């Protein structure tokens, strides 16, 4: 019997990068993603497989080593796991709890944007108040960028992770690049 060869999903913007003195745009490292839906009764039980309490304050996130959880709604979180070795074990554990855990690793990709002009470049397409008071580091939210939906996640004062559907990422990349040309 022929050996099975697994197809690998390559990041769509692999090897591409934009940088000037004010802004840098690059492909985020590969990671697996889970769309997690759970009711308030299951939250305590989820603490064990995740290794931390899911954030319940609107628009906040939690990072613990290679696993991050982003609050998207009152019963919805996005899990991002950058350690490929723990992906299946985590899914198996989640399978035993009354929740919905859907692997969306191949649906999403992410772009990292950083630099001193990061708020201006993002505001070229996103209508949100991205000042540090309104959207401090750790904040995350589903929102709009131009015509597409994104999940915006602020990692540090001048660094954002933009989670986007893979087929929309070309639009996002082109739009960000266009906005970035007005900086630096």
């Amino acid at each position: 019997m022929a050996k099975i060869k697994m197809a690998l999903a390559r990041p769509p913007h692999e090897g591409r990068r934009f940088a000037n003195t004010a802004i840098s745009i690059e492909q985020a490292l590969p990671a697996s993603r889970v769309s997690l839906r759970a009711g308030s009764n299951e939250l305590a039980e989820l603490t064990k497989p995740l290794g931390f309490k899911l954030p319940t304050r609107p628009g906040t996130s939690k990072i613990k080593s290679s696993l991050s959880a982003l609050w998207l709604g009152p019963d919805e979180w996005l899990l991002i796991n950058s350690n490929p070795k723990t992906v299946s074990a985590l899914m198996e554990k989640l399978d035993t709890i009354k929740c919905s855990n859907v692997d969306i690793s191949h649906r999403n990709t992410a772009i990292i944007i950083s630099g001193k002009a990061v708020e201006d470049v993002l505001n070229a397409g996103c209508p949100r108040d991205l000042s540090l008071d309104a959207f401090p580091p750790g904040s995350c939210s589903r929102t709009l960028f131009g015509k597409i939906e994104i999940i915006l996640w602020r990692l540090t004062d001048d660094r954002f992770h933009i989670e986007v559907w893979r087929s929309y990422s070309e639009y996002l990349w082109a739009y960000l690049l266009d906005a970035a040309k007005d900086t630096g």
Partner: protein
Amino acid sequence: MLLIHCPYCEEERPEVEFAGAGEAHIDRPKDMNAMSDAEFEKFFFIRDNLKGVNYERWRHIHGCGRFFNAVRDTVSDKFLTTYKSGEKKPDPAKLKTGKGAK
């Protein structure tokens, strides 16, 4: 841009993240089979569509995804207040001066 307070996200968010979803506080009939066509028509199609203060359902579709209720003046497009689905209809007399008025 108009800002709308989402009761689930607990903050004001840009209008473009939201979608309107018609009149609020319409109870689904307990037994549709027992309804006459005229009663069903009234439940399903007929809306008040008032000029002025309306109780509406809205959805934070490009945010938390939740449906919630809003009291909006259709003349001024002003949101008098927003509240979670399932919560009681606020008294309109108290809205204009009370909590929630902007």
